[in-house]
């Protein structure tokens, strides 16, 4: 084979920069994280960090982080699926899709910042509440604002894979189901949803993992009320300078991530 002959001279050239990148920026950093997790704040080798992680303080934090990530994922899915479904039915779907994607390209910080204004004490949301007679409340720095803003930010990431899955769906299956007398709900539940579950899974993956590790939204919108795994890592690395503990939390985050990827992975 020709390609085989090519292999011998040119191949090392392709490999060198890329393999160097893999070793330096993929493998080495992970090893370093694991290595650092075995050092306590004084720089001595110990399992102290792991012991500390299993105390109620950290376990509670991890649990609440998972809970918030779960909520964010569920809300995103509930809003995104119908949106993606309806988008596939529109006339100029590529244009509409582009409009959905466009906000993804706008810096996350700017979107979070906009909500500082909208949810503020005198912001639009409160004026709306006043107008319908509920009266102004504290919206910013609550769990609600955190979940809302996170869902807002992640929705396009959920819509996109579901939209793609729906596009790949062979429409004759739907027609067949309808011809065989299935109602629209049954068609959806028994045909459309099972066939697009791959997109749902990748969407959940694309939302859940980042939601676990968010840290700037917790700072700006939740005012440190919500502490996610990401916030804790940032805190340990950049504020208290306890890299060992930060690395330990990072190890658990990596493990959680691997489990989620395995659970939502598409079997081939």
């Amino acid at each position, binding site marked *: 084979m020709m390609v085989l002959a090519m292999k011998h001279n040119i191949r090392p050239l392709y490999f060198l920069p890329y393999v160097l*990148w893999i070793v330096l920026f993929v493998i080495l950093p992970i090893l370093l994280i694991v290595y650092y997790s075995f050092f306590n704040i004084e720089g001595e080798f110990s399992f102290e960090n792991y012991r500390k992680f299993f105390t109620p303080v950290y376990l509670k934090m991890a649990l609440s982080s998972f809970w918030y990530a779960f909520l964010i994922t569920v809300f995103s899915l509930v809003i995104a699926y119908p949106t993606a479904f309806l988008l596939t039915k529109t006339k100029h779907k590529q244009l*509409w899709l582009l409009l959905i994607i466009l*906000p993804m390209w706008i810096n996350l910080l700017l979107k979070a910042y906009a909500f500082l204004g*909208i949810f503020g004490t005198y912001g639009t949301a409160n004026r709306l509440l006043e107008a319908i007679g509920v009266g102004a409340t504290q919206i910013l720095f609550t769990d609600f604002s955190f979940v809302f803003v996170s869902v807002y930010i992640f929705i396009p990431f959920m819509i996109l894979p579901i939209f793609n899955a729906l596009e790949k769906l062979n429409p004759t299956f739907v027609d067949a189901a309808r011809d065989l007398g299935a109602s629209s709900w049954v068609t959806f539940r028994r045909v459309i949803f099972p066939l697009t579950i791959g997109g749902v899974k990748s969407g959940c993956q694309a939302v859940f993992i980042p939601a676990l590790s968010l840290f700037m939204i917790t700072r700006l919108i939740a005012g440190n009320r919500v502490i996610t795994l990401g916030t804790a890592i940032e805190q340990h690395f*950049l504020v208290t300078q306890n890299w060992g503990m930060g690395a330990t939390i990072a190890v658990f985050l990596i493990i959680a991530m691997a489990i989620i990827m395995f659970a939502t992975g598409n079997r081939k």
Partner: protein
Amino acid sequence: MKKKWKLSNIYLVVVFFILYSPIFYLVYYSFNSGGTMHHFEGFTLEWYKEVFRDVRLLIIVLNTVVIALLSAAISTVIGVFGALAIYFVKTRRWKNTLLSLNNVLLVSPDVIIGASLLILFTIVGIKLGFVSVLLSHIAFSVPIVVLMVLPKLQEMSPTLIDAARDLGASQWNVLSKVVIPYITPGIFAGFFMALTYSLDDFAVTFFVTGNGFTTLSVEIYSMARQGISLSINALSTLIFLFTILLVIGYYFVTLKNNRPGRLGGRR
């Protein structure tokens, strides 16, 4: 049927409204002379003037653009090599291993990338600043370039390479005259994605930037932590316009390259 169609349209309109209203909210108040984000007093361009007068901010914008262009260019080169490497590996197992390693940084949360690179740079002794930020942006942009280029390579018929070889082309010629021209749309897409990744990144940069060096996102974060200032709004508006231009540009580039396939008739 008619009624249902209407209901679905309302749903879409609501979703689009929610998606876009915060952005337009920001833009609207960037013209507010009142100085707050809740009471519009009068029209002013004062905040834009302030942005353009702020030399420090302009330097930060310049830094951000330089980092984005450099990291996108370098990671495109590495990424194209990477895609070629993955393409030419014949063993299935190695191919999958390379692909999984490639995707590690794509799925890793930003905090983990940031924290691990911070450890790396500290151990190796790279001073936190321009170099560390540039290196980390290259690090997380490479995999996306690989993913944009690889499908183009796989779509290319291997007989093209065989034909070129039979006609006496050297390996370099095969690469530069056959393979690279074929995958150029993928390379452009990869470069563009790397560019947006870099411009958009906040978390990783936040970890690896030292005291002296900042990019726009980190600067906006520290400004926003101090509360509302309408010059952030003005800046956001400018960034928003720039983003739209970029997206439109990208749209036309891909439209031109993909004329026969992809965008149009997919059923």
